[in-house]
């Protein structure tokens, strides 16, 4: 049993110790880093297929139909078939497109998401009395790095939309610029609460600080974070920058073949990355009884993505003014309230005992209720549809 729990730690120790005598410690660590990067990149790409399959099947069941079930047993090879199809398709570049930026954008959208996986701790193991974290790099400023890197993706979206020389693409890119930049603010502020409670920016330290998962310690922060993440991921209540029914998929209208595939891949890869970050920040990361740590993280990631699919199956797309109002007039004040409450608690009880969990849940519900009341009283009269002027028939 012990070997299953610690398999990755034992492998890491074995490889590093085995290579050190012949190659030297520095080269051995570099080889280990390459192996880790290779593994994490492939796990990411395989998980993209899992996510695409899961999204289509679960969304199908939400809509009382079956979903893809023809290719392979239960349709599990459908993402592979789609990948083959997308690779053999013709690559079209519009005549009036800015070719350099047009070709650069799919790479630019892909790289930042891939970079996020460098710091996600997939698990923990003990080998030879030493603790090994299953992450490529255990950065001290892990969460800051994640936030910095993911915001690069917006530039790629803007590049794609602008260089396509298409009005729908440009609309999509403009919406993306407005929406993604706005939702960065509550996203970062919600993370601040977690960082105050954990007392560290390192993702591994944040996980180890979670004796009580932070979803109970920071319920308000969790709600703000998951809302902002679904806006960052362009998922359905906030999928305005794709908006297939109004913008015919927005910024990547003009892309075809594998370049479109890169956008599609990056979308699900970032869904995987953010599901992993939500699990790490709020659901206790790899921690859990009985099962090995990496299995627990996988279960939590799949559960978070299931919640995203569930929300997608439930909520219709909102208008752009509603999206912006939600970010700036609702989530931002709530995030500030959350930071204030957490900071006061940090001063009074620096160790954050468990009884703060129910207190924080009550405070969260009260804050949402108060903000909703204020939000409604200010905004609802303006949202009523204007009465149409009655025109008598025949003049």
């Amino acid at each position, binding site marked *: 049993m012990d070997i299953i729990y610690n398999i990755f730690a034992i492998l890491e120790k074995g490889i590093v110790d085995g290579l050190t005598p012949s190659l030297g410690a520095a080269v051995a660590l570099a080889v280990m880093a390459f192996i880790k990067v290779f593994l994490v990149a492939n796990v990411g790409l395989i998980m993209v297929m899992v996510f695409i399959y899961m999204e289509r099947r*679960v969304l*199908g*069941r*939400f*809509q*009382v*139909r*079956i979903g893809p*079930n023809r290719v392979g047993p239960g349709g599990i090879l459908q993402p592979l078939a789609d990948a083959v199809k997308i690779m053999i398709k013709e690559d079209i570049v519009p005549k009036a497109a800015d070719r350099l930026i047009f070709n650069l954008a799919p790479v630019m959208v892909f790289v930042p998401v891939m970079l996020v996986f460098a710091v996600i701790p997939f698990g923990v193991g003990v080998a030879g009395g030493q603790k090994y974290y299953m992450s490529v790099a255990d950065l001290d400023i892990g969460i800051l790095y994640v936030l910095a890197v993911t915001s690069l993706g917006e530039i790629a979206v803007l590049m794609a939309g602008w260089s396509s020389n298409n009005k729908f693409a440009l609309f999509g890119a403009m919406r993306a610029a407005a929406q993604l930049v706005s939702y960065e603010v509550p996203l970062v502020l919600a993370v601040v609460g977690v960082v105050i409670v954990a007392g560290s920016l390192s993702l591994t330290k944040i996980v180890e600080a979670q004796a009580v998962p932070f979803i109970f310690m920071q319920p308000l922060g969790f709600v703000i974070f998951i809302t902002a993440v679904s806006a960052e991921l362009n998922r359905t209540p906030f999928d305005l920058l794709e908006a297939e029914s109004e913008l015919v998929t927005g910024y990547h209208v003009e892309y075809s073949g594998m370049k479109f595939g890169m956008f599609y891949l990056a979308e699900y890869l970032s869904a995987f990355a953010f599901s992993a970050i939500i699990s790490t920040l709020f659901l206790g990361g790899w921690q859990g009884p009985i099962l090995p740590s990496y299995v627990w993280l996988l279960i939590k990631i799949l559960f978070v993505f299931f919640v995203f699919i*569930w*929300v997608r*199956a*439930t*909520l219709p797309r909102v208008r752009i003014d509603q999206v912006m109002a939600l970010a700036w007039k*609702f989530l931002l004040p709530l995030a500030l309230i959350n930071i204030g409450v957490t900071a006061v608690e940090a001063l009074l009880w620096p160790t954050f005992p468990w009884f703060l969990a129910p207190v924080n849940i009550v405070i969260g519900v009260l804050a*949402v*209720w108060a*903000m*909703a009341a204020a*939000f*409604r009283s200010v905004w609802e009269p303006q949202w009523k549809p204007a009465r149409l002027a009655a025109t008598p028939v025949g003049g």
Partner: protein
Amino acid sequence: MYGLGILKGMVVTLRHLFKKPFTVEYPEQQVPRSSRFRGYEFVWYEDRCTGCASCAKFCPLGIIRIETSTEQDPGVGGKYKLEKFDIDTGRCMFCALCVEACPYDALFMGSKFERGSYSRAGLVVHKEDLNKGEKKPSVYYRPHLEAAGYHNEKELSSREVGRW
């Protein structure tokens, strides 16, 4: 309160998750069709057909081609020998006037619908196809079949299918 409506909606969709899927997986399963379904591939009984060409006359599009000869059994049994009986279903609109016109219960609408073709010529149903085809007539304009409770479930011989 802000968010309660969202939670209510989430409960509704969660209930849908556990419903039985509505999908009928077509090539393996088929949607039950009415017994009066006016389908493709007409059902035709050569020994009931006298070659009177009522169907050809009543066809609004003129797509039924009948050629008869008298060389065998001339006049015996009041029946011509049929050389040709072609229906160009590529132009057929399935009005079933030919079925209504048939005085000898020899022509019926079919109960199937899968007879796609890559060419117009392939859509023409010949006498041989009609003789070989499945004899599961639709009960359209055949009240005696409907009264017997027939529902396209088994093949009918030329004796069973008529009123006399």
